[in-house]
């Protein structure tokens, strides 16, 4: 018989008899690979889209000069334009406006308008030039004309010749759509108009957002950047295009890495399932394999045969995973957006590109993990002496090899140590390693724990009083704990991960909910139709709102984006009335803030979010300078507060300080408290009746909270999905392990039938065994899961998202899930045992020669 034919026979035979296990293993690998590949594809698409879009905005410039606040004085433009080493300078005013027509349908309907000097832009960003109608070339300079990218035209449903109304603060400006752009980046929503017109129409006279520089040939870019940086001082930022790429990567990094690690967890689960099914399979086929060896198959051939079995499952699972991953990515990009609902990349429509290198990587990862999972049992099977292996009961020597209390202790201990280590490159690498080590350690410890528990239980039982089936089940579990542990592994892994996720997400959600209650103390909130509106509300408008009769108290808030580091996303500056004596009334402090006495009179107090401490080192008591004010003004970090809204960092300060330092007396938001006796509805109608009432977005606090929680749930959509997958894989694993295990014990059941147990009794005994085991698995899984959730909550989250949270355990949900898993496991054991107990008793015993 030729080896390939034998190989095929053996493979077919094995798969035919154990379809379920094979399918479960393939599914697990598939999900792991699919998830990893999806996340990779989506993120690559999003980041490359973001970079390409940013690059198209800066064109062929060598260096971009921007201020740390959103705009700066235009006198810098002629200075830079005539600066030595500069060949061309392209001034840009970037305006963010709202689209009132979209306010109902879209949250924060933002359109970016670039004010360009076409004569300067032509040499640096020629793609962004407007294309006017043939007969209206001067529209390029007209002060009522705007040019829209194709994506913007589609979004606004307008064409050349139509007009659009945009809003800035309470003002509405109507512009004529004079044409498209020379070559806009596909999917990018932008508008372009003359820079002089933009300054005038949007009340930004004398202001620029950035200046793009093209350097003269032969000028050393690094040296020039350094020199200009010194010359301009700390309030300006110099960036090159690679900085924007870094910024894009930083924007989604924490989120992306966390998802990738979840994918690895799925793969890990898959590998474990392969491992456990291979262990069971080699045990079950022990005599068969020994026979093959006796008949002349070499160790290497046998090893190859066993690895091939699982390897082929891995190949199948990985291929299916790649296909599913691509499909999922396409669906997710269409329905959730490039950031899976997290909101990092608005205004972009990334295109999905198949990435062959990544596909190969994930394929190899899936297959490799499978082969790795089957390596140990295959090695053991191939290296056993065939003669003893042919004897009954020799499977317990296999299981002895799997008993590794020392490994378990080392893993658990290292895991605990790793949990205490700091992040690497802003990422909780050790936190995740700790979780993996805890999982491995717990599984390695399972046979030992299982034996310990059930032998204790056995000793505690009174043989004369206890049910005979119960006695049999406990005795079995206490003596064959190795075999039981393998069935348990799947339950342990999936249930512990489920518990961990459930506790983490609940803690997070409850913390966010509590936090929302704390940061939204007023009855009503209002702002112009977009957030961080450049104009916001003027002092007159503020006065008008304040003088409404139903308002008891009103807090105005100025919110502006600020860049502290060009390679990091913007932080948010919030200026609002804060009582220095009791900042905790407004700011959700995490620890004691500095008292007014500790703030020296020449410094201005700021209260920073936790992210500011981690990312910028703004520790309490530290004196810092901030770019929106004169650099000589010192600020002192007077407190740290919790912020779940802005993971890139936020700073709060007193509105009066902000106004003194910047001269900006406009505000972006207002928080309103209603007088006792007045109703929210009359207050809202009064606000709506103001001359600028219909340009305001007025929200009841309840709605703000609902919107925030909805956003929260959206960004955890993937986590929920993964949780479901984990449960599914876990349950399938339970089913597969139990049915396989009962089959390996066919001889045992034959013996029990011979000494008088009925079929139904054997079945009940097995069901009981299943229930006891699952119960043990669930308890262990719960403990392990709680441990993992603690790592997620107190280590992974603060390290990757820079916020802390309180622990909340969703008891009811956990109990429900525990019961569900217990029920499913018991049911599976029952179904599987019916098959086992129904076998021919005589034949079953005869097999035992």
């Amino acid at each position, binding site marked *: 018989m030729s080896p390939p034919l034998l190989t095929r026979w053996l493979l077919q035979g094995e798969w035919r008899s154990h379809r379920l296990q094979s399918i479960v293993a393939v599914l697990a690998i598939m999900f792991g690979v699919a998830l990893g590949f999806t996340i990779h594809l989506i993120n690559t698409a999003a980041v490359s889209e973001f970079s390409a879009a940013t690059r198209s905005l800066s064109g062929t410039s060598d260096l971009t000069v921007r201020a740390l606040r959103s705009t700066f004085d235009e006198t810098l433009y*002629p200075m830079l334009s005539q600066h030595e080493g500069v060949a061309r300078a392209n001034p840009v005013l970037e305006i963010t406006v709202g689209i009132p027509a979209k306010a109902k349908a879209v949250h924060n309907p933002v359109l970016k308008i670039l004010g360009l000097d076409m004569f300067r832009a032509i040499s640096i960003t020629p793609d962004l030039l407007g294309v006017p109608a043939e007969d209206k070339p001067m529209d390029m300079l*007209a002060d009522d004309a705007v040019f829209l990218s194709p994506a913007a035209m589609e979004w606004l449903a307008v064409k050349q010749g139509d007009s659009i109304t945009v809003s800035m603060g309470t003002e509405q400006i109507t512009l004529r759509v004079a044409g498209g752009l020379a070559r806009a980046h596909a999917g990018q929503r932008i508008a372009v108009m003359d820079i002089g*017109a933009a300054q005038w129409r949007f009340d930004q006279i*004398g202001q620029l957002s950035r200046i793009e520089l093209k350097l003269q040939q032969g000028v050393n870019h690094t040296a020039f950047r350094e020199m200009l940086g010194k010359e301009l001082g700390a309030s300006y930022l110099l960036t090159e295009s690679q900085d924007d790429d870094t910024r894009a990567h930083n924007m989604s990094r924490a989120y992306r890495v966390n998802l990738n690690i979840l994918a690895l967890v799925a793969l890990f689960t898959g590998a474990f399932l392969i491992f456990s099914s291979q262990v069971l399979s080699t045990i079950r086929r022990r005599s068969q394999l020994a026979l093959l060896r006796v008949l002349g198959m070499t160790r290497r051939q046998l090893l190859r045969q066993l690895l091939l079995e699982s390897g082929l499952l891995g190949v199948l699972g990985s291929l299916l995973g790649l296909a599913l991953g691509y499909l999922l990515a396409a669906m997710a990009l269409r329905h959730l957006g490039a950031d899976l609902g997290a909101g990092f990349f608005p205004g972009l429509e990334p295109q999905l590109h198949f990435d062959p290198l990544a596909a190969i990587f994930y394929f190899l990862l899936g297959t490799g993990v499978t082969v790795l999972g089957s390596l140990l049992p295959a090695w053991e099977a191939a290296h056993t002496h065939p003669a003893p292996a042919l004897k009954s009961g020799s499977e317990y020597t296999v299981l002895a090899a799997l008993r590794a209390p020392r490994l378990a202790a080392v893993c658990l201990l290292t895991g605990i140590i790793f949990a205490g280590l700091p992040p690497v490159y802003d990422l909780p690498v050790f936190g995740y390693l700790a979780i993996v080590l805890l999982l491995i350690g717990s599984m390695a410890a399972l046979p030992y724990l299982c034996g310990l528990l059930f032998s204790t239980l056995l000793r505690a039982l009174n043989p004369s009083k206890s049910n005979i089936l119960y006695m049999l089940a406990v005795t079995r579990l206490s003596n064959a704990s190795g075999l039981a542990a393998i069935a348990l592994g799947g339950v342990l892994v999936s249930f512990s991960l489920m518990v961990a996720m459930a506790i983490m997400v609940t803690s997070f959600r409850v913390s966010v909910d509590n936090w929302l209650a704390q940061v939204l103390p007023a009855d009503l909130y209002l702002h112009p139709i977009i957030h961080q509106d450049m104009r916001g509300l003027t002092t007159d408008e503020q006065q008008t709102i304040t003088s409404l009769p139903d308002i008891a108290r009103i807090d105005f808030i100025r919110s502006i984006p600020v860049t502290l580091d060009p390679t990091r996303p913007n932080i948010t500056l919030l200026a609002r009335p804060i009582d220095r004596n009791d900042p905790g009334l407004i700011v959700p402090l995490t620890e004691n803030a500095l008292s007014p006495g500790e703030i020296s009179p020449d410094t201005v107090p700021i209260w920073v979010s936790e992210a500011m401490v981690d990312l910028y080192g703004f520790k309490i008591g530290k004196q810092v300078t901030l770019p929106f004010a004169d650099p000589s003004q010192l600020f002192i970090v007077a407190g740290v507060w919790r912020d779940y809204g802005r993971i890139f960092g936020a700073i709060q300060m007193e509105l009066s300080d902000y106004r003194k330092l910047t001269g900006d007396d406009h505000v972006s938001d207002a928080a309103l408290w209603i007088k006792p006796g007045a109703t929210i509805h009359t207050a809202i109608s009064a606000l709506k009746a103001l001359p600028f009432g219909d340009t305001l977005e007025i929200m009841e606090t309840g709605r703000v909270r609902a919107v925030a929680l909805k956003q929260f749930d959206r960004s955890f959509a993937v986590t929920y999905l993964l949780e479901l997958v984990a449960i599914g894989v876990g349950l399938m694993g339970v089913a597969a392990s139990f049915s396989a295990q009962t089959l390996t014990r066919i001889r045992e059941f034959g013996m029990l039938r011979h000494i008088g147990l009925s079929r139904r009794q054997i079945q009940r005994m097995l069901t009981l065994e299943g229930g006891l085991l699952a119960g043990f698995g669930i308890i262990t899984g719960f403990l392990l899961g709680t441990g993992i959730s603690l790592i997620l909550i107190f280590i992974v989250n603060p390290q990757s998202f820079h916020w802390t949270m309180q622990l909340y355990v969703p008891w009811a949900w956990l109990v429900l899930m525990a019961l569900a898993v217990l029920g499913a496991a018991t049911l599976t054991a029952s179904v599987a045992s019916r098959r086992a107990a129904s076998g021919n008793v005589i034949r079953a015993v005869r097999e035992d020669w």
Partner: protein
Amino acid sequence: MRYLWILLGWLIFQSSLLSAPPVLAPVVPGKIFEFPDDHGAHPDFRIEWWYVTGWLETPTGDPLGFQVTFFRLTTQTDRDNPSHFAPHQLIIAHAALSDPAIGRLQHDQRIARSGFNLAYARTGNADVKLDDWTFLRTADGDYQTNIKADDFTMKLSFTPSQPLMLQGENGFSRKGPKTAQASYYYSEPHLQVNGTISRQGKDMSVTGTAWLDREWSSEYLDPDAAGWDWVSANLNDGSALMAFQIRGKDGSKIWAYAALRDASGRVQFFTPEQVSFHPVRTWRSTHTQAVYPVATRIRTDKIEWQITPLMDDQELDSRDSTRAVYWEGAITLTRDGKPAGRGYMELTGYVQPLTM
């Protein structure tokens, strides 16, 4: 008489509802020129230029034609816009070298809105700047220009050797049958040129003779006009000739003018009927397929002038920047068959009619 009448066309037909449209001054007969003020910009007029053309001699004795032009345009934008970026005035500049050794025009152009002292055309005296391109009249009456083009740089100074030459009726120069179709126009022939031209990193000193044209106006070309032919020449005997005709879409003459000033300063003016252009030889551009009458016979009453180009390909194609395509080149001319002098010829409207 320059191609920018094209742009003028754009600006005029631009109509939008402005709260404060620019108020433009008309060109009327009888203006008394005042210098140096009239050397400077006239922002109340729609269009204006400082236009120098001439022949240079390299150290090796080879001829080289050059053109340096600065335009100022008043746009139709709202004067209420207080932004320093408001494009109320545009500055455009063209520079070109005609070197027979290269066989085609080397040229470059710039355009910018005036503002921030990066680009301007000042009043009071000639002082125009567009980034690092400048044209300036000094206190002693010399002109200086500095051009940094992509393929060459020019640093030239021009010293007057003759008085100004007012065109038309004391500087009121008609461009068509309607009196409103006119400009203020004076020339400064026989400017002595000194300076440096550098190409491919190599400097060379040059000397030569140039012609300055100054023109400003608010009116536009006759609606039927397709383009024009224009010639100016510094003659060997110290006289100066300027002649142009405006062609209709059917190739006919809509308007024409010529003036010949002798070395003693006596000027002979020719009526539209006395001036005629007769193509002798045409050249087809390989860039645009346009056919230009590069060798031409001009009659001014009884005198016959024969025009021969320094080289055929002196077409300036700026379609991808300032949009204009025209032929502007160095020429030699004979008077009644005898060599008479050197100058520049401009041929516009041969690619497409100027009704943009």
